[in-house]
């Protein structure tokens, strides 16, 4: 990093809201500062990796799509106009890249027939022990459609509001609410018995 690894921080004046770390770094990325880009990459990597792991459910693809996403951030930084939060813009790029990767794999991105099919399938082997709770939940999430997985993860892990999720997924707000509603219903069905143990 430049200056011995120190990220430049503007002096915050009392009374004025300090800019978020990612915005400060991004401003330097716009000036083609590679050190700032490395820091921005480090800042976003854990969140994007989690988001993409959940969406793609293919560990081998996560790093490739994550780097595709950050390459766009580096090369197309001029297209960010500040109309949304920087994180929304970056996650939206990640979402588009991931969906594109899934389409290449011929993965159904919107599983409209899920309601009926799930009701016909046997629930995952039950009951699970507490040690297997996370695996069970991960498996249940894996059985959701990518769009359903995305809204669940963006809501509960990334704690985003439905408007921000709609901006990332480029869909109406009501669609986000409906997807979340159905995703939760599927999860509960798939996790039958488990939820009672958590309460």
């Amino acid at each position, binding site marked *: 990093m*430049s*200056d011995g690894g120190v990220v*430049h921080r*503007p*002096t915050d*004046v009392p009374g*004025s809201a300090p*800019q978020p770390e990612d*915005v*400060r770094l*991004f*401003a*330097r*990325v*716009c*000036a*083609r*500062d*590679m050190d700032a880009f*490395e820091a921005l*990459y*480090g800042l976003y*990597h*854990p969140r994007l*990796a*989690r988001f993409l*792991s*959940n969406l793609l459910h293919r560990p081998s693809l*996560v*790093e490739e799509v*994550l*780097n595709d996403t950050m*390459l766009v951030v*580096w*090369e197309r930084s*001029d297209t960010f*106009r*500040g109309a949304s939060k920087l994180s929304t813009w970056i996650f939206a790029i990640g979402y588009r890249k991931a969906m594109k990767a899934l389409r290449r794999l011929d993965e159904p991105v919107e599983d409209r027939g899920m309601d009926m099919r799930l009701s016909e399938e046997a629930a995952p082997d039950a009951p699970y022990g507490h040690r297997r*709770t*996370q695996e069970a*939940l*991960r498996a249940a*999430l894996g059985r959701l459609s990518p769009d359903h997985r995305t809204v*669940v993860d963006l*809501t*509960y892990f990334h*704690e985003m*509001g*439905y408007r921000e999720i709609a901006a990332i997924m480029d869909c109406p707000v009501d669609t986000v*609410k*409906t997807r*979340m*509603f159905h995703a*939760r219903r599927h*999860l*509960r069905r798939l*996790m039958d018995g488990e*939820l009672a143990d*958590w*309460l």
Partner: protein
Amino acid sequence: MGHVLPFNSDPHRETRELMPWLITGRLEPEERARVEAHLAGCEECSHELATERALAQQVAGLSNATGTSWATMRARLDTAARQHTLPPAPQPFRRRFTLKQIGTVLAAQAALLAAAVTITLRIEAPTAPYHALGSTPAATGNAIAIFRPDARESDISRLLKANDARLVDGPTAAGAYVLCIPEDRRAKVLDRLRDSAVVMVAEPLDTAALK
């Protein structure tokens, strides 16, 4: 709290749709009031909320061990940069020019060259008592700014003058401008720029960062 607006349709369904964002504290105040008012009188939905909280907690707690992969990213950036700098592959001639056509093109180029030389000589003839911008020592930028796309040049100019800041370079490919601000006032000036309606981003910059 004032009057709580009623739900548009099925209050149970709407409450359950909004529950996730009630749990994460991301509901608008009005929506929150509406959902909480319904929950206060609906045992079934309250039970649903408890189950939903458990689910939310479990999803948020899913571990996801990942290591950063900056080395791979850096290698991709280097590859992309090399691809951008590669000269374009020579295109095969789609058709052969006749000697007459080549002669016409050469004659046109010669005429243009002659015109350019004449114009240049006329411009340079009187020795102007000024220095070309390039002959002055290059001002060193110590900040960058990105202005709003709809910002007017007059507003930007007024803002910079008022803060004793000068544009010394840009726009970069990303639309950022390099500014020169008196070093002893840089932090304060940057704060004033950030407060301005025409500035999207204003950040300090060391010259090394641009190299």
